[in-house]
Every structure is written in C-alpha cells, then in structure tokens.
C-alpha cells in the first residue's frame, strides 16, 4: 500500500516537474473571494461554460455522422434520428443544450447587469461577454441552418431578405451570405464552416479571455447600497474585503457552481429524453410550398416584431436597431464605470431589465401563436357551426358558402375556429350595418384586401346577407337610422302608389 502511494506520488511528480501546472492551478483555485459571492446568484457563468463544453462534445459526436452537403444533410439527420442507436438522444442533447445555453447566457448577462459587475475594473470582461452573447446567438442561428429542413431553408430566405435591405451593398451581402445567388449547396457548406470552425474557435478564444479576467480581477463583490465604485479606491477596497471577509474560491464558492452545472446538465438530458430532438421537419425542397416556416424559440420575438412593424419602419428598424443595441451594450461599462452597484440604488436598471424581460416574454408568446398569420386551411378545414346557418334564409346560406369558399375564414374566425388576422365575426352584425359590411367587403382597408374585383355582385350580396345574421339572439343587428327613415318613406310611397294603382273595388278586370 505504502509502495503504491509512493509510486503514485512519483508519477505525479514526474508529470508536475515537466508541466509545472500546480502553481497556477493552486493560485486560481485558492484565491480569496469575498464571502458573500459564494452565492447561488453567481453560478450562471460557470453553467454557461459547462454547457459550451457539452455543445462541443456532442457537436463532435454528431459530426461523425452528419453529412454537411445540401443533398445529404437532411437524410443524414433522419439516419441519426432513426437508425443510429441513441443518435436521437445525441441530437436531443445538442439541441436542448443550445436552448439552455442561450437562456443561461441571457440570465447570466441580466444578473451581471443588475449586480453592477460590469463596472470598473471589469469593463472589458463585460465587453468580451457581449461578443460571447453575439457568438452564442450566432451558433444558435447557424445550428438551425445545419438542421437542413424546410424551416432552415426559409429561415435562410428571411436572413437573405433582411440582408437585401442594406443600402447599396445589400445584393452583394446576400450573395456572401448564401455563397451564391440562391440558397443551394454552397450555402450549407459555408454555414457548416461557420458553425463548426469559425464561431466556436473565436468563442473559445473569447471565453478564455473572459475567464482569465474573472480570475485576475476577482469575482465581483456583492453589491451593497452605498458601497460606491471609484477608480482610485476600488482595487484596494476589493482586496481588503477579499482578505478580511473572504474565503478561498475552492471549495468555498465553487461547490455551488459544481452543483448547479450538474443540475443543468441533468436538466438538458431529461429534456432530451422526454421531448426528444428538434426536427428535422420537411425536406428542404423549395418547390414544396405547403409550409409554414417558423424560426427557433430564441428568434420568435424578432418574428413577432416583423409582423407588427408598419411597413415603412421595417427596413430602418432591421438595419439600425441591432447595431444601436450592440453599441449601447458595448458602451455601457465605459459610460457607467463608476457609481452604485446595488439594485436598490439603480431603479432604472431594474426597470429596464424587467421591461425587456416582459416584452421578450410577450413577443415570444405571440410568436408561438402567430395571430397575424392566415390559417391556410381554415376555409376548407373548419366548418361553420351548424347553429349559425340553421335558421338562415337560402340567400344567407349561399353567403355562408361564399364566406368559406373565398377564404374569408383564413383570417376571420367564427365559433372559435379560423384565422385571427382579422377580427372574429361572431357578432359582426352588431358592429357594422349592412351598408358598412358591403363597403368593407368591396373596398377592404386596414389589413383586409378589397374583394370588389374578386367577387361578383351576387356573391357580395349573398355574403353580406350572411354576415348580417352574425349576431347574438338577444341583440339585434346594427342598423342605420337614416336608412330606416328612407325605407319607411319608400314603404309609405309604395303603399300609396299601390293603393292608387290598385284596381277599383267593384270594377272587373
């Protein structure tokens, strides 16, 4: 036993004599950090780090089977899913690992912002972190392209359409993005190079710099109201704090990192087992147009914004806002390098993060339900509720047929089914008079096409007669008072006319 221990020590010493890693590792592990930083709030950075290595590891394993060719990629993903034992699990790990990584990076960023950790002397750590966020998002997008299915194909189309809006050089940028004039083999090859070599290589380099600075500058002290950051005094104050009320990083703070990272890896694995891998959806054949392309979860908010922006604002928004946002993020630590760190004294910061989080949540929620998209098969797939036409006149029933056949249903719901692009029409007759209905159908307006040229007068008449029946039983349809007056006069006139023309009693025809 004693001999074995001695041998082990000798082997260790042999390596240590050559590697000389003991000193730097000990320095990194045992450096003093302020006691309060051993907190569950400080675990997100290390979790993102762990997830990065999970992604690299699973990515390499997938690359052993995946074929980065536009002609074969989709089929090789299906082989991974269905034929290679546990290939689906590896794809699940990589896909869910990606979602978790984006989420953890965003949470890490929000925490660092709220804790004022970007202030002096950690400005550069934040700036490098902004690039890490951008590269993480870049990995998510390029990864979605490598899952070379319909969503990937049309997602690339959306990317190209956005690029094409850049003034003067838009066309060239589209060609650079796609590797040619159109989405084809060259496109997948260059996205493979980006996803597997260019971005991960840069990412690893930046992660090294990021972690290096965390080790050199120390973990950010817990923000205390009134403990103001000043360039002249901060370093001294921090070292004083770390040495009078500090603990060694390992194991004092590190055990929480370890446990959280382990829990996150377990969560990724559970998601991969329970929910399985993402896609691939239909094959990337652009001649199959029966498709409803949608971006991955973390880009749904952009998808939502693009449906609600007024057309004239879209290009400026797409081209200016992202650059502005990145510029603000990069400039933040340079502008606000000093001052309060505590969220108790930074209401604007708290408000900003909560507003962004709530907006992001709402936009993402809308992106999952897409109320702005026509339901392409509602006209043929969603029948009208029977009670809506049970007592209808033949003309109104004919109108109901027009309503279905002319795809009105794709944008308007009745009885809870149908599109949501336009308003639900269950009670439309209580809101619009028959003249207004006719006008609206013929001229469109707002977000509705004008049907004047697409429907015959008889179809329009039948349609508005049907729409006129869409009101609750206890609520009459809207009517136009002046029309009533005209109708009453006309009725009286025609009655008078009738009595004048009526055959005289007693006379025989």
């Amino acid at each position, binding site marked *: 036993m004693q001999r074995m221990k001695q041998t082990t020590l000798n082997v260790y010493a042999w390596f240590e004599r050559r590697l000389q890693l003991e000193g730097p590792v000990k320095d990194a592990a045992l450096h003093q950090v302020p006691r309060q930083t051993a907190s569950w709030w400080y675990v997100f950075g290390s979790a993102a780090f762990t997830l990065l290595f999970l992604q690299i590891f699973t990515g390499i394993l997938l690359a052993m089977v995946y074929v980065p060719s536009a002609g074969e*990629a989709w089929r090789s993903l299906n082989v991974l899913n269905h034929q290679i034992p546990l290939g689906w699990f590896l794809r699940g790990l990589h896909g869910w690992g990606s979602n978790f990584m984006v989420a953890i990076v965003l949470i890490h960023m929000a925490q660092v912002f709220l804790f004022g950790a970007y202030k002096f002397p950690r400005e550069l750590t934040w700036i490098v972190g902004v690039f890490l966020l951008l590269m993480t998002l870049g990995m998510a997008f390029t990864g979605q392209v490598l899952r070379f299915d319909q969503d990937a194909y049309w997602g690339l189309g959306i990317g*190209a359409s956005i690029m094409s809006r850049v003034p003067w050089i838009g066309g060239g940028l589209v060609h650079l993005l796609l590797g040619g004039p159109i989405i084809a*083999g060259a496109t997948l090859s260059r996205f493979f190079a980006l996803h597997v070599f260019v971005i991960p290589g840069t990412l690893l380099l930046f992660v090294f710099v990021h972690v290096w600075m965390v080790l050199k500058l120390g973990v950010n002290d817990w923000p205390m109201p009134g403990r103001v950051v000043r360039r002249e005094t901060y370093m001294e104050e921090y070292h004083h704090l770390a040495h009078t009320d500090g603990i060694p990083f390992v194991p004092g703070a590190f055990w929480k990192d370890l446990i959280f990272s382990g829990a996150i890896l377990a969560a990724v694995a559970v998601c991969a087992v329970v929910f399985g891998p993402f896609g691939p959806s239909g094959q990337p054949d652009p001649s199959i147009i029966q498709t409803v*392309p949608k971006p991955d979860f973390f880009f749904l908010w952009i998808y939502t914004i693009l449906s609600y922006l007024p057309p004239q604002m879209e290009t400026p928004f797409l081209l200016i806002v992202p650059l502005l946002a990145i510029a603000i993020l990069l400039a933040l630590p340079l502008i606000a390098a000093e001052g309060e760190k505590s969220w108790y004294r930074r209401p604007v910061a708290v408000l900003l993060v909560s507003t962004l989080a709530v907006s992001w949540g709402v936009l993402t929620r809308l992106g999952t339900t897409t109320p702005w998209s026509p339901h392409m098969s509602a006209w043929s797939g969603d029948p009208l509720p029977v009670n809506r036409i049970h007592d209808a006149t033949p003309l109104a029933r004919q109108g109901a047929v027009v309503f279905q056949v002319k795809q009105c249903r794709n944008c308007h719901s009745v009885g809870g089914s149908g599109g949501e692009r336009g308003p639900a029409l269950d009670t439309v007759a209580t809101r619009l008079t028959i003249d207004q209905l006719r006008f609206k159908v013929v001229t469109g307006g707002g977000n509705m096409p004008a049907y004047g040229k697409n429907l015959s007068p008889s179809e329009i008449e039948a349609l508005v007669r049907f729409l006129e029946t869409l009101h609750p039983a206890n609520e009459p349809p809207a009517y136009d008072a002046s029309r009533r007056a005209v109708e009453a006069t006309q009725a009286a006139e025609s009655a008078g006319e009738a009595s004048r023309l009526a055959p005289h009693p007693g006379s025989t025809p």
Partner: protein
Amino acid sequence: MSNVTYPANPQPTTPDVNTAIAPGDPRTVSRRWLLFKAGIALNGLVGVVLAVPIVRYLFAPWRKDASYDSWVSLGALDAFPVGETRLAYYKNPSRNSWDGETDNVACYVRRESTSRFKVFAINCAHLGCPVRWFPQSQLFMCPCHGGVYYADGSRASGPPERGLFTYDWKIVSGDLQIDAGQMPTLSNTARLVTISTRSGDSKCSG
C-alpha cells in the same frame, strides 16, 4: 559575435551610469533586433501578399446580379390556360450536383392572354416566405406574417412594402422562358419598377 553591438545613438560625450547602454540592452539596435524586425517585416509582407487572394476567394460570390441570370424554360405554353395562375417549376440554372432538392425552384405563371404572361416569384416581398395562391378568392397569401397580394401581384394587405417580385419572360418556339437564377429580394428585383403607359408596360430603372 553575439556580443557585438552597433549603437544607434550618437556616442554620448559624457558617459554616465544611467545612460550607458549595456550590451544586450533592448534599446540598442543590435544585429539581433534588426533581424527580428526584418523577420516581422517579411511576415507582414507575405501576409499582405497572401491576403489579396484570400480576400478575393472569400468574396467570390459577390458578383453583379446580371452575372447570375440566365433564361430557363418553364415548359410549353399549353400548360398555362389563359386567365389562370399556375405553379410552375424549374431547376436552378447554376446548380451543382450536391445541391440536392434545393435546386428545385417554383414560381407562379399567370397567363393574362394568349400572348401576355406574368411570372411571379413565390417569395413574399416582405421576408421571402413562400406565398400560396388561392384561385377561389384570386389572392396570394403568405403564411409567415400575413402578407396578401391580388391576382396581378400587387400588394393587397399586410406587411409587404410592394407587390410580388416578377421575372422577365419571353416565348421561344412555343416555350415560356424566364430570366432566373437568383433568389428575388429587395436588392435585386426592387430596382425594377413597372411604369404603365398607354403603349404598354416598360421596365425602368427607378
């Protein structure tokens, strides 16, 4: 040999302890430092010489739009009844064997009269999603953000800023041909606006 130094500074007339240049002091231009700098210069020069072809290689796809276009056939005219809009397919003219299914491209052909056509890209003018044609209501609808177009391709509603992109077409010995080859986007197709005159439509750079 390595101890020989060539002082760059004029000889100090009054050498003192503080300014005396010791052999090997990096402030001196020794032969070693000169060679070191020459090494950097050589690498810089080679770097520049290499950068030119590398940049050229990287920017190879960046070409004028016209260089990607070519005329492709959509088939015989009989396949397109007058007054109807039909989905037509063609192969990407600049395809490679590894493109797989991506070299299938679809477009909509509207035959306005026996000799007049309109050929629309399936890509929505908003963000390029594939629009679907509904012959019953004579509308194109986009599944992504709800853009809608009339039968003549003009914008009806939704977020698109303009009507559907069109291809130039011509009839060659009973075949309908279109000028195709690149994904229609605002950068290449939007520059063409159609100006209606009494004598007919003309394409005009706008």
